[in-house]
């Protein structure tokens, strides 16, 4: 294993004809972390992963994968990683079991015990022909094939979009075990609970460009906390605080949103007015992402530089 990060992308460009799919994308995934890769549909997540797999040729920028060039060294690098596509299609006339073995052998060997264990955990019927599998079951086949291989890096493109909650939790356990062995995962996902539960760091991209990258705590830092309080006296000073938004005062009750940076000051104002009841709700992931996915984005991106 190299000393560098398993995935290092800087200023990556890729266009299809006139469509600019990636426009100066940056992404660094460190050794041993589960990295969430988020963005609205069509923002370039799958394109990035396919460049990393050497399926697409970059137009510009720097891409390093496991200390190699994903285009030139594709085959050698692929022995050290496993990939689960977002839209799993399998050979209709092969059974699930055959596909798992085939993909494992193509990568250089199957750990039979581990394979059996995973088939059992994911409750997969390996004797069924791929033609007859549902979307979720096709995904399980690809997941078992990927997880049963002994690799350093997993590239997962929305791997659980068809799984039921039970299987989702099996998947999360498997990723935990994988991470416990010091391995690295790039996980593209729209399931925010999954991201919150699994990811150490996340990168959010929009229209082919990285707009945020950092730990969830760091990202939360960029957003607002909702506060509701009942006070002994009106807190008129709140209105003059720069970081307080959407302030509603009804007699002794106040509700407002406050930027994380101003939180302490705002609570100070409340304290001086005399707090009777107080609820403060941290920003939910949904709010976080809605802000980043939505149109508000440009200001947000300008307001705070991306934490390293």
């Amino acid at each position, binding site marked *: 294993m190299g000393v560098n990060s398993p995935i290092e992308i800087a200023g990556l460009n890729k266009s299809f004809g006139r469509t600019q799919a990636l426009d100066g994308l940056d992404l660094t995934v460190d050794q041993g972390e589960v990295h969430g890769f988020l963005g609205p549909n069509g923002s370039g997540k799958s394109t990035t992963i396919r460049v990393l797999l050497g*399926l697409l040729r970059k137009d510009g920028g720097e891409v390093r994968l496991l200390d190699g060039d994903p285009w030139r060294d594709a085959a050698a690098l692929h022995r050290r990683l496993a990939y689960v596509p977002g839209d*799993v299609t399998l*050979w209709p006339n092969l059974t699930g079991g055959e596909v798992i073995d085939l993909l494992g052998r*193509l990568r250089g060997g199957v750990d039979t015990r581990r394979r059996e264990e995973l088939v059992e955990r994911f409750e997969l019927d390996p004797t*069924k022909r791929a033609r007859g599998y549902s979307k979720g079951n096709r995904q399980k086949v690809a997941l078992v094939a990927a997880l049963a291989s002994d690799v350093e890096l997993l590239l997962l493109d929305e791997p659980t979009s068809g799984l039921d909650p039970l299987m989702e939790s099996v998947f999360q356990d498997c990723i935990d075990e994988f991470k416990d062995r010091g391995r690295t995962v790039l996980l593209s996902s729209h399931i925010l609970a999954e991201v919150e539960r699994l990811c150490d760091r996340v990168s959010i991209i929009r229209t082919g460009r990285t707009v945020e990258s950092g730990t969830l705590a760091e990202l939360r830092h960029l957003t607002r906390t909702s506060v509701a309080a009942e006070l002994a006296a009106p807190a008129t000073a709140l209105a003059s605080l720069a970081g307080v938004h959407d302030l509603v005062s009804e007699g002794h009750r106040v509700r407002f949103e406050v930027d994380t940076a101003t939180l302490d000051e705002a609570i100070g104002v409340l304290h001086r007015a005399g707090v009777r009841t107080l609820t403060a709700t941290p920003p939910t992931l949904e709010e976080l992402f809605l802000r980043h996915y939505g149109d508000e984005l440009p200001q947000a991106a300008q307001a705070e530089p991306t934490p390293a």
Partner: protein
Amino acid sequence: MTGTGVLVRAFLRRDRWLLLWWALGGTLLYWSQAISVKGLYATQAEFDRAATMMESNPALIAMAGPARALNTVGGQVTWQSAAFGAIVVGLMSMFIVGRHTRGEEESGRDELLRAGVVGRRAPMTAALVVAAMANILVGALVALSLISVPLAVADSLALGVGLTLCGLVFTGVALVAAQLTAATRTMYGLTGLVIAASYALRAVGDVGNEALSWLTPIGWYQQMYAFSGLRWWPALLLAAAAFFTVLVAYAVFERRDIGAGVLAARPGPARAGASLNSSWGLAWRLQRGSVIGWSVGLLATGLAYGSIGNDAGDLMGDSEAARDMMVAAGGDLVDGFFAMAMTILALLTGGFAISSALRPRGEEDAGHAEVVLATGQSRTRWLLSQVGVTVVGSAVVLGAGGLGLGVADALVTGDEGTVGAFTWQTLTWLPAVLVLAGLTRLLYGVAPRLATLGWLGLAYAVVVLMFAEILRFPDWLRSLSPFEHLAAVPVESFDSAAFATVLAAATLLSAGGWFALTRRDVG
């Protein structure tokens, strides 16, 4: 049936160019014959002489059909075009039906349609209507183009109507096949088998036992005797067969689930067999069925040709003049027949080779290539294993044809030596077959959506073989077909230099495809 009209319009919208090209191609097949034959012979005496020679050539009869009134333009058009025209409309019908029924079901798009306000039978009926419209279009264009030449109106109409009905029979066959199998590929295989068998059976029938010609739609079409004592009643057989097959298709459809075939899926092995351990293993596994199917088909075709070859001399009839001419033109009659048979076997194998060279494209389109290429297989290795199966498969398929030819001949003549000799001689055509695959691979490497144009290579080779003489193609135009460069064994002796040159051309085309593939985006 609710929604059939909407679907018909939607299908026509998707198919308009496809239909246009098929219709023009089919029409051109007939019309170009009429035009070219018309200006070919200066005097009727010359025409008569040429006709006598053709009539007495069993190889040509096996290829085209019963030789009748060959000293007339109409007779020539019927003879040269009817069998191939029937194959063209057969393939057209098969693709139209497959694309809108089983293909849609397999991909799951059909489900989306069926969730709309659409009756159970509407998609199938719409496919039938579109296929019928296409066949009527081809038939009408053929009839009109021949009338415009001008040829006799009633006989021109008969050729058109017979062609349309032939197409409808194969439409029915394709509809039945679409109900039986869950995979589109298998459905095409089944239908193609019926079309090929119809052609081969009538070949045997026309040369030998005439009763066999009465077992196939192509035979019925030719038995209408257009331009040589026209009779309409065989058309009734065609109409009845079309009606009956469509009826069967609907009956089967009522008894099956959407998305499934009649032949139910059985559980398969939970573990992969030892052979499924590399991209070679995968490529072989994916094409195994197709190699076996084509081999059986070619074996049967070889057997059919081999069984009649030795009679070639007898079929000459009493015409001493014709015999002299044949010998002067191409040497031994029996050898000439087998040379022609081997060329046809090679052209048929070209069909396998091209469809096999198209497999990588199918794999890429379906997203399977992506999964395999993400496992540590290099593109080179992945493509090479596909190429390997194409090359070995082509040799096996072609060899099976030669084997059939030899075995049947050995059974007839008692000379066991022909088994090995014919198999080897047939295999000398392999480089030309591989050029067709190489061309397809080059197109695929450059841009996957161009790959299907590889079929044009085969079409061109057929045109050169069948019509270059009659249409007086200049040499350079003929030399574009790889089949023109190889020695026509056993009439000519094997030419190892030509063999090596054509093989080198095939390798070069493939290498070009590989070069382009390693430099473009995949998926």
